[in-house]
């Protein structure tokens, strides 16, 4: 039996590192407090609650843990310390994550102390397979390395658009990679999974959009690697990112997980657009997240061929009708019952149909959706600036792009498969993010996702001038993630260890 009530309380206070401030003397406290120790009774009811989720701190002191307590033993060794916020007004214990340390390696603690750190949302520690997975933001990373601090500044949107479209987006992947030949694949750190990646992408997309998280009316999370068979990722995302108005101890937001192999995210673009366009829905903004810690059996086992391609990553897109950076012009989806890739209930890893995954599956559906949409809009490949195909491996997207008549400069900027691996539900979304990072205003992008099982969603979107304004807010973009000098490469054994999670 796990102690769920405790887990729930710790998650409630710890996922966003809640703190309180006395409105009389301005003393600050970690955790929620009803009154101030200095002002006593007169401060009762005058404590302001706030959180440190988007804040940055300083690693004041640290030490090296080489013999962790049982629940942290999968981490082997790590740096633990004290992080202070607001000039030392608040101090919290901290675990420095995203650092591969091995016993015996000399860690220079002095070189870490005094540096800026960012709170990250991660798994708290290991639990039994049947238990609730505890999460927390007491995991920090150094702000001058892979994950810089980005300020979350809410700005009131001003400009109305006729068509719904993307108002903010972001991609996220971990700091670790495994490399074989020219193929690099992202590997989650051991405390990361599809849930933490979904929250990260959502957080970064909110920062990019400048929207108040309370304005979001619906959250969709598409994934095929949810660590739970039953329990949505979307509820965690809604709670941690405080999506929708806070109403007592619930969020006024609709949250749903979707599943359709790799197109679970893209499929919901049209639903999000429709929802924000429907006047009676009362939803001004909806967020769609595709997130996967792509699963594959170890090499040599049935289904192990996938282990050469799987990656880790997520992307989030916020849809609305104000301050749009890319309008969604039209879409087309197709579906057929094609069992090219599947995972039976209770099985840890998916299986695939070998050669059957090509022509009768990926190519048939992507070809259909892309060509049908271009035909409907009366567009030729030359009318489209960028083509973003789903990218399960390096060959498929190139082959379909060429077949549809696209030139290399139209499709290759979106191909991130060689950088992050196949990120399943995140794959075409990260490809689209790579294009939005570099596109100019008034350019047309064709996205064609693919989900095994099988189906494809094609979208034509057109960028607006506001794309450039919002780009300035974003330090962590796809290029930053792909070409980061702080990326760390791991060997196959470490990769399997990290992938399994805490």
């Amino acid at each position, binding site marked *: 039996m796990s102690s769920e009530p405790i887990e729930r309380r*710790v998650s409630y206070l*710890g996922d966003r590192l809640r703190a309180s401030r006395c409105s009389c003397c301005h003393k600050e*406290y*970690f955790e929620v407090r009803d009154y101030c120790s200095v002002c006593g009774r007169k401060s009762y009811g005058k404590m302001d609650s706030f959180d440190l989720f988007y804040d940055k701190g300083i690693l*004041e*002191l*640290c*030490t*090296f*843990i*080489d*013999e*962790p*307590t*049982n*629940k*942290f033993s999968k*981490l082997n060794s*790590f740096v*633990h*310390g*004290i992080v202070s916020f607001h000039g030392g007004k*608040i*101090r*919290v*214990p*901290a*675990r420095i994550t995203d650092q591969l340390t091995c*016993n*015996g*390696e*000399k*860690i220079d*603690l002095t070189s870490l*102390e005094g540096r800026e750190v960012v709170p990250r949302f991660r798994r*708290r*520690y290991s639990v039994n397979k049947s238990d609730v997975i505890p999460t*927390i933001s*007491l*995991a920090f990373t150094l702000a001058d390395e892979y994950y810089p601090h980005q300020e979350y500044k809410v700005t009131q949107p001003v400009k109305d658009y006729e068509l719904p479209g993307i108002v903010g987006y972001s991609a996220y992947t971990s700091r670790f990679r495994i490399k074989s030949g020219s193929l690099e694949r992202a590997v989650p750190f051991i405390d990361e999974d599809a849930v933490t990646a979904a929250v990260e992408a959502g957080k970064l997309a909110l920062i990019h959009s400048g929207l108040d998280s309370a304005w979001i009316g619906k959250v969709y999370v598409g994934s095929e690697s949810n660590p739970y068979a039953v329990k949505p990722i979307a509820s965690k995302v809604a709670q941690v990112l405080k999506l929708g108005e806070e109403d007592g101890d619930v969020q006024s937001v609709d949250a749903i997980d979707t599943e359709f192999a790799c197109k679970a995210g893209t499929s919901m673009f049209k639903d999000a657009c429709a929802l924000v366009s429907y006047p009676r829905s009362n939803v001004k903004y909806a967020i769609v997240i595709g997130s996967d810690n792509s699963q594959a059996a170890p090499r040599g086992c049935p289904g192990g061929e996938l282990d050469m391609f799987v990656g880790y990553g997520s992307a989030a897109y916020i849809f609305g009708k104000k301050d749009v950076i890319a309008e969604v012009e039209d879409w087309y989806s197709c579906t057929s019952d094609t069992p090219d890739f599947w995972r039976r209930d209770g099985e840890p890893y998916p299986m695939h149909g070998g050669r059957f995954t090509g022509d009768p599956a990926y190519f048939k559906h992507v070809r259909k959706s892309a060509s049908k949409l271009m035909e409907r809009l009366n567009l030729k490949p030359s009318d489209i600036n960028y083509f973003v195909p789903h990218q399960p491996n390096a060959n498929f997207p190139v082959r379909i792009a060429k077949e549809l008549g696209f030139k290399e400069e139209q499709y290759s900027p979106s191909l991130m498969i060689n950088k992050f691996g196949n990120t399943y539900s995140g794959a075409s979304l990260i490809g689209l993010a790579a294009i939005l990072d570099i596109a100019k205003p008034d350019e047309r992008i064709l996205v064609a996702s693919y989900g095994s099982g099988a189906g494809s969603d094609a979208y034509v979107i057109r960028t607006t001038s506001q794309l450039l304004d919002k780009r300035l807010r974003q330090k962590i973009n796809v290029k930053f993630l792909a070409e980061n000098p702080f990326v760390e490469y791991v060997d196959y054994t470490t990769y399997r260890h990290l992938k399994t999670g805490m």
Partner: protein
Amino acid sequence: MQNRPAIVAVGRTKFGEHYGKEPEKLIEEAWLAASNECSIERKDLEACYMSDCFLPITNKLGLEEGFLSELTELHVPMEATRSFSAALMTACHAIQAGVYNTVLVGGIEKMSDRWEKIRDDLMLLDDPWSYYAGGTPDSNHELMMRAYTKKYGITGEALEKFNIALAQISVKNHANAVNNKYAQFQRKISIEQVLNARKAANKPLGLYDFAPISDGSSALILTSGEVAKKLTDQPIYVLGCGLATDYLNYTAREDLTRFVAAELAMNKATETAKVAALDIPLWELYDQSTMMEMITLEDLGLCEPGTAWKCIHESYTTNQASYPIKGKQVYVNTDGGLKANGNPLGATGGAQVFEIFCQLRGEADKRQIDLPNGQKTGGVVECEGFGTKAIVTILGERKQ
């Protein structure tokens, strides 16, 4: 302190791993040893105060009072606390109030039965938020050490001396334990061993800086002054005690380089005992780590903040058993301290009192310190958690 309670007898078991003994066997051993010493019968006891930090977790013993009642065949009032000093303090209050005249105070802990999970339990109980951030029972001590060296600008050569001073604490405690037949580790260690263990672990503090996990029990008979005279010629009086508390989460405390709780408890204890800190030559400090023994010297007001390590280093260079502090010799942990004597949480304070009791009565055999006349007083500092709760007890031969 009015109507001073007196300790008339003490008893304890050896600390260490008692694989073959159940918790009740251990406490029975300690209580029989104490009762034999002053010929107390069960029927003479009017109440029992018992301490164990987490017996319900380690040995699945809920309602310790019932457990003790079964053991002693008594139906008298019983109370359970988490530390021996807290039990002793509560017992003192009852005797001072005139409610009882003769009570048993006992402590028990059996940690080795839960060897695999003990560090998780300790940390989760001591400082849950640090635990959630991956902290271990050792990490707060190390963070305190780094905070201390940073605050007082201890670097370079001074830092080397500082590190040796901390090592000396452990070396001294182990040397003291050699003549303590109850100690968990009756053997000497060297400065090099302590330093090498730190180097091997690549950490600020190493294996020899921390107290072990132990099983053990301790007990004492506490009576009113009147009753004490009938039972023994040499009662040891509780001159004063003080208790204070602090935040559970170490990181959230105002000052990371001291234990405020120990400081406050000390103030209260010296106030009631009407003695000055430096007039107490004998101390049993709570050296859960070498760092903690050092910092407590400052918390008690014996040394100025930022200077305790210098006195300890001096004892190293002059090869003294005591710390030279402001022209006085201060003896700390003559029984080996938590480091070498052992640290079965609920029973630890009892062993500390046991040592002061023996020293003040001149019954400490080869460990005996020649205390100057008129200064036969000793102090005990016990903590719960990482300085979350501190209790200071001052004991003396004379009913001042």
